[in-house]
C-alpha cells in the first residue's frame, strides 16, 4: 500500500533536460540545446534588468554615502541635520508620489522611518545631551508611529515593533533593573509577552480580513522572536549549576511559548510556524540533555547520554512533524 506521506515528484521545467539526459533519452552533446528550449527567457530578462537596476542604484547610493562620509567632520551641525531632514522629506514625498506602487510606498516610508532614528542619533551626537539611550528609541518610536499607522504596510510596522522592543530592553537595563522594578531574568519574558500581544493583534486583524495583514511572514517572524527571547532565558537557566527558584520561572515562559505556538501552528494549518516551534522545543530539550550529560561527571558516559537524548528528541520531533504535515494535507 503506498505511503500517503510519500508523493510522486513532478519535476519543474528546468530540471527536465537533466532528467532526460540521465535516462539516456537525451545525448549529452544536445543538453544545452534542451536547456535553451525550456528556459523562460522572459523571466531571465526581467531578472537581469532588475539586478542591473539594483546594482546601479546601490552604487549611486554608496557613492553618496562615501561623499558625505568624506566631508562629514567638516560639515556644520545645521548642515548635518539638514541633510538628514532633507532625506526624510524626499523619502516621504517619493512615497506619496509613488503611492500607487506598493513596493515604492513601503520601501520609501521605511527609509524615512529609519532616517528619523538616524536624525535623533546625530542630534544626540552633536549636542551631547547626556540622555539615556532608551530615550532615543522611545522618541524614535513615538515620532514614526503616525506614519506607521497610516502606512497600512507590514515592513514599517516590523521596524516599529523592533524599535519599541529595543527601547524597552534599554529602559529595563538603564532604569527598571537598577531601581529594582524588574528582575534581569524577567526582561526577555516581558519582551516576549509584548511580541505575543503584537502577534495576537495581527491574528485578530487577519481574521477581520484586513488585506495588508494577510501575508504570513510577520506571524512566523513574531513566533521566531518570541521563541528566541524565551529560549535566551530558559537555556542558561537549565545549564546553571546553582539551584534556585527562578529556574522554573525562566523555563516556564519558553515551555508555554513552544507548546502554545506548536498547537496554534497546527490550528492555523501553518506548517512553517509549527516547524519553528517544534525545532525550538527540540533545541531546548537537547540543552536539557547536555545538562544531564554534564551531571554524570563522566565524559564518556555523559557523551553517550547526550547522543541518546539528541537521537530521541530529533527523531521524535521529525516524526511528529511528518504526522502534522500529513494531517494538514488530509485537511485540504
Amino acid at each position, binding site marked *: 500500500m503506498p505511503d500517503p506521506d*510519500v*508523493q*510522486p515528484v513532478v519535476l519543474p521545467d528546468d530540471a*527536465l533536460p537533466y532528467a532526460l539526459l540521465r535516462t539516456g533519452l537525451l545525448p*549529452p552533446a544536445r543538453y544545452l*540545446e534542451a536547456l535553451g528550449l525550456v528556459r523562460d527567457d522572459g523571466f531571465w530578462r526581467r531578472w537581469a534588468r532588475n539586478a542591473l537596476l539594483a*546594482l546601479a542604484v546601490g552604487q549611486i547610493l554608496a*557613492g553618496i554615502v562615501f561623499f558625505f562620509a568624506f566631508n562629514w567632520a567638516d560639515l556644520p551641525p545645521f548642515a548635518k541635520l539638514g541633510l538628514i531632514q532633507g532625506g526624510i522629506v524626499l523619502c516621504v514625498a517619493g512615497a506619496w508620489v509613488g503611492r500607487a506602487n506598493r513596493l515604492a510606498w513601503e520601501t520609501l516610508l521605511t527609509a524615512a522611518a529609519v532616517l528619523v532614528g538616524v536624525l535623533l542619533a546625530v542630534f544626540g551626537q552633536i549636542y551631547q545631551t547626556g540622555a539615556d539611550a532608551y530615550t532615543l528609541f522611545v522618541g524614535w518610536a513615538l515620532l514614526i508611529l503616525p506614519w506607521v499607522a497610516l502606512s497600512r504596510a507590514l515592513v514599517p510596522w516590523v521596524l516599529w515593533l523592533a524599535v519599541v522592543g529595543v527601547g524597552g530592553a534599554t529602559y529595563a537595563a538603564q532604569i527598571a533593573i537598577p531601581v529594582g522594578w524588574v528582575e534581569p531574568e524577567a526582561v526577555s519574558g516581558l519582551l516576549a509577552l509584548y511580541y505575543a500581544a503584537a502577534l495576537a493583534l495581527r491574528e485578530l486583524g487577519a481574521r477581520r480580513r484586513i488585506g495588508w495583514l494577510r501575508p504570513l511572514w510577520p506571524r512566523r517572524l513574531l513566533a521566531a522572536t518570541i521563541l528566541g527571547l524565551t529560549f535566551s532565558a530558559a537555556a542558561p537557566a537549565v545549564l546553571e549549576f546553582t539551584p534556585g527558584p527562578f529556574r522554573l520561572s525562566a523555563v516556564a515562559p519558553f515551555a508555554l511559548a513552544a507548546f502554545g505556538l506548536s498547537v496554534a501552528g497546527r490550528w492555523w494549518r501553518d506548517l512553517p510556524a509549527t*516547524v519553528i516551534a517544534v525545532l525550538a522545543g527540540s533545541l531546548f530539550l537537547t540543552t536539557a540533555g547536555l545538562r544531564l550529560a554534564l551531571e554524570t561527571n563522566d565524559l564518556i558516559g555523559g557523551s553517550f547520554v547526550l547522543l541518546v537524548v539528541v537521537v530521541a528528541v530529533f527523531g521524535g520531533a*521529525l516524526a511528529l512533524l511528518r504526522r502534522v504535515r500529513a494531517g494538514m494535507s488530509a485537511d485540504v
Partner: protein
Amino acid sequence: MSDDVLDRLCRHFGLDVQIARGVAIGPAGDDAPWYLRAASAIGAWLTAAAMIAAVALNLVEAFDGENLPLTAAGSGAVIAAAAVALHRASRGEFANQCAVAAALAGQALVVGGLGIEFEAMTVAAAGACVVAALLTAAIRDPELQFLSSALAVAAVLAALLERNVPQAGGILVVVTLPPALGLLLRPLARLDLRGLAWALLLVPLGALSLPEIGGLNTDWLPRAVYAAGLLAVLVLLWRRTTAGRRPMVAAAAAVAILLGAITAAGIAGSLLLLTLAYLLGSRMLAIIGAVAHVWFVSRFYYDLDLTLLEKSGMLTAAGLLLLALWWAWTRSAEAEAGDG
C-alpha cells in the same frame, strides 16, 4: 512541469511523449518543503556531532597522545564507511542527513589526522581527495558530493599555501575551472557529478576572498582564467542566440570581459557565474552569482588605495553608467513589446 514544455522537447528531439512524461514524473520520494528539510538537517548534524564527540572522547581515553592522529584518521575512515552503510540502508530524510554529516566528519578526521601525523597538508589533501572520490562513488547524494568535494578543494588550497606556491589561487582556478565547466555544460549521463562541479566552481572563487590570494596586485592569473572561462561561455551563448540578439550579446560580452580585466578576479568570476546561471537556467546559481558580485565589488572598492572622495566619484560614475544601460535596455524592451 508544464505540458507544452514537455511537448516542445519531445517534438524537437523526437521523443516518445509517454516515456518522457514517465521521466518527468520522477520516482516517489519525500518532496518535503525546504524548511522541513532544514529542520531535519539541523537535527541530523547535531546527532552526528554528538556521535563524533562520543567516539572522539573514547579515542582520547583509550589511546595515548602519540598514536592519536593516526587513530583519529583510521576512526574517520571507519565512521565514513559506517555512514555509507547507513545511507544505503535508510529511507528517511533524517537518517540520510545523519549519514551525510557523519561521512563529512569522517573525512575531516582523516584530513586532520593525516595532516598532524605527517605534519604536511599535502598528505592531508591527498587523503581528502581520496575520501571524497570514494564517498562520491558510494553515496549518490548531491549535497554530500558538494560538501565532500569542497573540503577536498579547500585542503588542496591549504597545501598550496603551506608550500608558498606563487599564485596558489590562480593555479587552483586553472585546475578546477575547466572540469567544472565541462561537467555543468555537458554532464555525464551515467554519473551525477553536479555536486563535484559546483564545488570545483564555487570554492576557488570563494578563496579569492582571502587577502593573500585575491589582492588587487596579485590576482592576475585567476583574473585571466576567469576571463577565458567567461569568453568560452559567452561564445556558447552567442552560438545559441538568434541573429537579431547577437550584437547585444557581443556588446555585453565585451563589457563583461573589460570589467573583469580592469577590476578584480572575483568580479570576473561572479560575472561568469551569472552568465552560467542564465545558460543553465539555474536560479540558485543566479542568486549565488549576484551575492558574489556584490561582495567582490565591495571588496574591490575597499582595497583601492584612494580617498573616500575619489571612491565616491568612481561609485557614482559607475552607478550612473549602469543606470544608463538599464534605461537603454528597458526602452529597447518596451519598443520591442510595442512592435510585437
